[in-house]
């Protein structure tokens, strides 16, 4: 089956979807990718003509929320075709095979499709103590990753773990959990942050890769621009309340009931790039801010270390967890005031003669 490499469309047909379903899927995914209407035909054509690209999906230090999010993305074709065992040659969580059989399947894919397959990675790679903190099939995560990356066409780093470290890399990071782009330097890498990323975002990235055979357009942090070029804040439905200066002061106040902006209860939407306000979650049902909770910046680097999840300020180690730039600033201002006071007193003591001399001089001149 793998040898013949059917096209995506053939697989979709085989699964019993109608042409209509297929086109619906194409238009949906094209819209998510941020392409224009013309892109629909392109996606459809690519899916009809290109043989499916094998995917190897590795799991390291993670919680599998990315996979969970992906298989729940709104269109069933995503899960069926891109994610089930046909398209996915190896993934610990979902494959039928196990043990040696599974490892064999992976090695075969890596050999047969060298330079063609896409490597998806979920989770961080621990590098402390030679990587003993995460071993799969007798190899360390580091080894597994390097072997698989060797022949990969491109790598997708799923979620905040693989793209920036997430909670396991939070200080003091006991296992030296490391995101993928800090280990693999010589391959094109797409970072798709979020804890987890939105399922449709993941589908959009995969479809772009497999249909066009190229990486989607990336920003300076290697994130696909189509999904990460806007702040949550700039696409938030509570934004008019922000601009009006109407804020929720506590989670249980009248303003919260009215649906005011969550800025003052620590919403980090203003510093977070993601599509939560546009694509939303769970098939577009809602998003965290819609349900009354501020964004806590799950898709940004170091989000566990950037201060409390409920405040936008970043703490300083050594000044107490809650102290941020403003706290330190206020203390420094106080110290400065004390210093100035002391200096003013000292001036009047030590330079008294100098000043009185000036005055005397002036007076003698007037007299003469």
């Amino acid at each position: 089956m793998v040898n013949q490499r059917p096209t995506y469309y053939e697989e979709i047909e085989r699964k019993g979807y109608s042409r209509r379903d297929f086109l619906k899927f194409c238009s949906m995914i094209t819209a998510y990718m941020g392409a224009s209407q013309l892109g629909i035909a392109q996606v459809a054509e690519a899916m009809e003509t290109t043989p499916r690209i094998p995917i190897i999906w590795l799991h390291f230090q993670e919680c599998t929320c990315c996979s969970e999010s992906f298989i729940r993305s709104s269109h069933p074709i995503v899960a069926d075709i891109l994610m089930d065992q046909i398209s996915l040659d190896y993934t610990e969580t979902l494959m039928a095979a196990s043990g040696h059989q599974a490892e064999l399947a992976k090695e075969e894919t890596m050999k047969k499709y060298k330079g063609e397959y896409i490597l998806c990675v979920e989770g961080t790679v621990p590098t402390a103590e030679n990587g003993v903190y995460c071993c799969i099939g007798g190899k360390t995560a580091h080894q597994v990753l390097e072997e698989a990356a060797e022949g990969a066409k491109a790598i997708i780093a799923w979620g905040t773990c693989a793209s920036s470290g997430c909670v396991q890399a939070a200080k003091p990071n006991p296992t030296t959990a490391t995101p993928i782009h800090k280990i693999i330097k010589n391959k094109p890498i797409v970072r798709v942050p979020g804890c987890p990323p939105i399922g449709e975002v993941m589908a959009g990235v995969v479809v772009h890769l497999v249909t066009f055979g190229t990486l989607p357009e990336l920003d300076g942090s290697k994130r696909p621009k189509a999904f990460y070029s806007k702040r949550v804040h700039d696409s938030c439905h509570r934004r008019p309340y922000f601009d009006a200066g109407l804020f929720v002061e506590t989670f249980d106040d009248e303003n919260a009931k009215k649906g005011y902006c969550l800025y003052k209860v620590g919403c980090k939407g203003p510093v977070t790039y993601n599509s939560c306000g546009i694509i939303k979650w769970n098939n577009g049902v809602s998003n965290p801010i819609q349900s009354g909770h501020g964004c806590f910046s799950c898709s940004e680097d170091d989000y566990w270390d950037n201060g409390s999840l409920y405040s936008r300020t970043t703490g300083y180690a050594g000044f107490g967890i809650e102290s941020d730039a403003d706290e330190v600033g206020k203390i420094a201002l106080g110290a400065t005031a004390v210093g100035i006071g002391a200096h003013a007193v000292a001036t009047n003591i030590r330079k008294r003669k100098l000043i009185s001399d000036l005055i005397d001089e002036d007076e003698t001149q007037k007299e003469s």
Partner: protein
Amino acid sequence: MQKSNASNLKRVFVWELPVRVYHWVNALVLVVLVATGFWIANPPAIQSSDEASLRYLMGWVRHIHFVSAYIFVFNFIFRLYWGFVGNRYASWKSFIPTNIHFFERIWSVLKVDILMIKDKRKGYHTAGHNAMAGLVYFGMFFVFMVSIVTGFGLYADMSTWFLPQMFDWVPHMFGGDAQVRHIHHVATWVTILFTVVHVYLVMYHDYVEGNGEVSSMFGGWKFMSEGYVEHTKEQQKNKKKKKELV
């Protein structure tokens, strides 16, 4: 300290008009920027039964912040330019230490003004800002740069104009907006502390030396002893001679 002679004070023109305008525009926009900045960081609780569509308070505060920031930037660029064409008190050479004498003068200032001990050399006494002040202003140059770069970095993604968009790389470099915002705050605090000390020291110098330090930033004139004026004249003559010889 020079024994100044009240009868023999001479007017010296120190701060040219562009320098004075720069200074006061800068002072004004900094006050506005700091005030609106703190407002944006932690807006006060205002209760209102208005619909959001009737109000734009936060929007206006942000707008004022951004407009002031633009004025601040262009004013700053203008001052950099004036550092090359202005008089010797405005010149970049009075900010950036280029030789060992600069540091000697700084030490002399520290001795007289901070440690309050006698210093026999009179080198530090100048009609422009003293060597220590020059170096601190040079430091503030970098703090302003940090404010500008982080500010535009945060602003870039909301803007369609090329100037702020040129700073698109900033959040990517520092690992996200949260970090950039943090640095922006730190730079703000440094500016506040600088301002407090600066204002105090201006009054201190005015009080101790009686040269018209405070009013000089309005009219441009300072009052220096005859001895000082002649001394500087001679120095300049010597410099010219040296140049001619070369």
